């Protein structure tokens, strides 16, 4: 898969402060279609805030976000919503509706394209959507659990259902905020391998926040480090060194040394 910036995500000069405290002081980064980029940084360094600004859960103070070559600047209303829909997000807390089946949860990713009358309950979802959702579940390896309640699945399986929901949305840019922080090592590897595959084989632009440098080394095409509200580290996953990590997580100690 060739990587292309025009069909990925690009963020320029993203700024955000809370009550006078600057969290993002001009963040620049890009994620091309076909690559998996991992975002590292200490607790509170603003990784979640950056992703939330892209997806629209947080209003940034400034900066420009471009999705698939189209800038969100100046867009509003339905036009903004339509452009944003090309990006999807999965969360550490997974956020599935626990009482509904895995399949119904995946279908919910496709709500935006449905008329209201067909979207009020799973029984009303059109057959086409259910079959597409089934294909998405199959993509994450859970076709056989379609009718199980989401709450009954293991954490790793739930996170894969959440990824399938993002696929059902038709997302070309996938954001993942600590998708594996609550998973055991085997499930974490499985989910990271899935994200890498979605980038490399299906050509999605994937940006994942992680707290495990090991996983970043193993799965990421590129690693970005967020420190002091800016991107201070950018390297290939395979070349991520221990001193890079040291500098990112304990800058004071490195400066003192």
């Amino acid at each position, binding site marked *: 898969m060739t990587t292309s910036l025009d069909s990925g995500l690009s963020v320029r000069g993203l700024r955000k402060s809370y009550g006078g405290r600057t969290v993002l002081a001009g963040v620049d980064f890009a994620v091309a279609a076909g690559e998996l980029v991992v975002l590292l940084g200490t607790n509170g360094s603003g990784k979640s805030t950056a992703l939330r600004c892209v*997806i*629209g*859960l947080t209003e940034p103070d400034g900066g420009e976000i471009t999705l698939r070559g189209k800038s969100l600047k100046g867009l509003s209303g339905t036009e903004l*919503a*339509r452009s*944003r*829909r090309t990006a*999807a*997000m999965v*969360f550490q*807390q*997974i*956020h*599935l*509706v*626990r*009482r*509904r089946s895995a399949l119904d949860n995946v279908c*919910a*990713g496709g*709500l*935006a394209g*449905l008329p*209201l009358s067909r*979207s*009020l*309950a799973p029984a009303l979802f059109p057959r086409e959507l259910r079959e597409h959702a089934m294909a998405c579940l199959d993509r994450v390896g859970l076709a056989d659990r379609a009718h199980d309640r989401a709450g009954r699945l293991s954490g790793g399986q739930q996170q894969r259902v*959440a990824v399938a*929901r*993002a696929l059902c*949305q038709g997302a070309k840019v996938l954001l993942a905020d600590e998708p594996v922080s609550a998973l055991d090592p085997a499930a974490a590897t499985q989910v990271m391998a899935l994200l890498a595959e979605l980038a490399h084989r299906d050509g999605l632009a994937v940006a994942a926040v992680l707290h495990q440098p090991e996983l970043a080394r193993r799965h990421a095409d590129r690693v970005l480090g967020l420190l002091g509200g800016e991107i201070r580290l950018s390297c290939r996953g395979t070349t991520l060194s221990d001193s890079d990590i040291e500098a990112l997580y304990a800058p004071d100690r490195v400066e003192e040394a």
Partner: protein
Amino acid sequence: MTATERPRRPVPARARKPLYVAVAVIAVVLGAAHVLAWQATEVSPGALVDGWRGMARFLGEALPPDLDWDEVVQPGLEACLTTLAIGLLGTTLSVPGALVLAVLGTRGRHPVVYQLSRSVMSFLRAVPDVVFALVFVTAVGLGPFAGVLALVCHNVGVMGKLWSEAVDEIDSGPADALRVSGAGAVQVLANAVLPAVVPSLVGLLLYRFDVNVRSSLVLGLVGAGGVEFLINQSIQLFEFDQMATYILMVLVLVVAVDLLSAAVRRRLSD
């Protein structure tokens, strides 16, 4: 002995000493409150002991219960159905009002709307259902209908508050997840918020049905009909054995409703 062999360490002194004075003050205040309450309610164990004969006579007349079918049991059963019906309608008819107030009274509303709806609910909760019953009796006359209206008013306040709290407590994560996928407000409500809250809303509804059946018993006393009306009547006519029958019926009714709603709530909360 192992106790002497276990490792030990001196406990370091706490930075903040326990508030002995505060504990003592609270104890004195609580004690005084109980003394005053004792006097205010004219508690007198002597009177209770001296009067045991009266109680015994009363209970003797009540036992055995009068199980005459035509005179007592059949009217009693009919009245129980009336009581149940008052409780049922009092609960069901309050659903729309409670829903509106609950939705307006959840966090995130405009502060004025939020406060207004909270105040209306507080008012409806503060006025006892018996008072509502008296008010409605003056409008529609004695009978079960006044009881239904009274329960509806009181229950709208209580259930609205319980429901709005249940809605406030749910995790907003699944709703956020759908919102960022482009789903509209109604779609988010139907596919993320409702599936999460409906079980607890239904559970609370059943709990209120249980409470309302018991309240409708009390409303019988103000002429709203039902089995408690018969109990009141039999007391006034000194037919204590009939009263005993009705009380047994009430007991069975209350326990049955309680068991039913508890069973359904257990199924819902798996």
